[in-house]
């Protein structure tokens, strides 16, 4: 669809806004409606829009499957790691209060990190699912090369 100028121009205008909105939902999530899951879906949809308009081959150059694979794992590891940090710093698993000097700041930091982990994994998962469906003829593995 990359030959239709209107689509190309509009999507180029929209994608930065989508990504920015995703970041807003992400970082606003600990005090207002939103959070990692929603932000991850919105962030991922920005890339999916790009892939729909300019083709998956170009999108794969922007976000190769190797990166989404590592992002998928990194989000989960960040989530689990915050929990383990709670233990190391002398609290219970996932106890955010010990993460900073003051319990409130610790809770804030903890939930922000957790939500970031969720957002990272969800965005990567959305993109990966799209890649796998878009590249039906080739498996996700060949696509990486």
């Amino acid at each position: 669809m990359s030959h239709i100028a209107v689509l190309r121009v509009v999507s180029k205008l929209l994608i930065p806004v989508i990504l920015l909105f995703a970041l807003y939902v992400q970082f606003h999530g600990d005090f207002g409606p939103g959070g990692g899951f929603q932000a991850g879906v919105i962030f991922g949809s920005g890339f999916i829009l790009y892939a729909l308009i300019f083709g998956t081959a170009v999108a794969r150059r922007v976000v190769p499957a190797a990166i989404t694979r590592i992002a998928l794992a990194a989000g989960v590891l960040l989530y689990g790691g915050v929990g383990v940090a709670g233990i190391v710093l002398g609290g219970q698993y996932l106890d955010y209060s010990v993460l900073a000097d003051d319990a409130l700041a610790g809770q804030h930091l903890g939930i922000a990190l957790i939500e970031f982990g969720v957002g990272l994994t969800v965005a990567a998962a959305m993109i990966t699912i799209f890649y796998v469906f878009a590249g039906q003829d080739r498996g996700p593995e060949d696509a990486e090369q």
Partner: protein
Amino acid sequence: MIGGHLPVLLVVLPLMAAPVCVVVRRPAWAWTVAALASWGAFVAALGLLLQVLEGGPISYPIGGWAAPWGIEYRLDLVGAFVAVIVSAIGGIVVPYARSSIEREVAADRIYLFYCMYLLCLAGLLGIAATGDAFNLFVFLEISALSSYVMIALAQDRRALTVAYRYLIMGTIGATFYLIGVGLMYMMTGTLNMADLAARLPEVAETRTILAALAFLTVGICLKLALFPLHLWLPNAYTYAPSVVTAFLAATATKVAVYVLIRVYFTIFANVDVFEAMFLREVLMALAVVAMLSASAIAVFQTNIKRMLAYSSLAQIGYMVLGMSFATLTGLTGGIIHLFNHALMKGALFMAMGCVVFRLQVASLDTIEGLGRRMPATMAAFVVGGLSLIGVPLTVGFVSKWTLVLAAIEANMWPIVVAIVGSSLLAIAYVWRVVETGFFRPTPEGAPAVAEAPLSMLIPTWLLAGACVWFGIDARTTLSVARQSAAFLLGSGP
């Protein structure tokens, strides 16, 4: 310091090792990560069992939020025992998996197998550790979703269809469980199991709670494949990679039985579900039908993995039967059979995995005279088979003896007849394999095969040896099972 965090480390270790497998990606490294994590989980589970035996149930508030508001991990004797079973099987299966998976799963997907295996392990251990009814649902889904993927990883294309069918049935089961939890939450406003137990008696007579109990029972029975909700199981076990079958057969259905025990004896501890709501009659009837019909079907199978899958259905009947007595001896029999059946089915499926490793398929036609070419593998099968029948000096005898005692105590002689009848059918199907494997001549032109590699034989024999060891000296296992049963039947959680 670390001892106090064991309840959560038990789950977090495999959970965090899973994404590491995805990052490292090389089969050998992913295997190392999986092995270290499962052995670590086994050590943690053993430590927990010792702690519980010494000082009673352990409670761990996640994030420092006290129960019943926060999620509580609560390990009592039953939970710790199940965690030890699951992690021990995991620790034994991983070394075995290395060669077997190379043969049965595409090379570029091996790391995915280890990732999924670790997630499944984390889910199963989480079910054993958690004291929160909703958290249990989450772990139920983690373990189920990863097992669908593990089954679908087999190179046989039929595995995709059976994994999909399993997905549908498993999702229905999990949804029913969730509806049941939702209904209980509606009436009590709590999700913590101990808190639920305290609040349920007030509302036990309402239709909502009756519906919740029905949804929970049907949902979990789908997961544990109790007759007539078993249709997904035989195919799933037949077409999955051998390691996956061995792991799931030895752990997943056992954990589902554990969930059922949890619901009846912890959540509904203060409500008389067995007498007042006819659950005893229903469960007992279904268990007996499962024991007899599944064993009878197993006799006519030619694919040995499928035969063992049907035999698993019968064995699940024994566990549910033991539970449905709701007496000390009966529940002891059910709980000890969890452990014993994990050992024997693990050994049997792993022996067949060795056959599949050499011959691609384990059916009665391919194993003619195999006892001479793969003696160690087939001998392990015989030990497991004897256990399945319930020959004295094997674990099967211990379970069946306890169950027979329970039936006699309850004055239910027909049940004794059913147990003996099901064992006779077990002799029939095990004998078919033994006869074909050892007493038929090797057919002309049969492929000359060597024994399976040691990395597969040693784990197989470890489990087969355990079948005999715990059959001769059942004191430890029986005492843990009896204490668990007494605890469950006692004052509740």
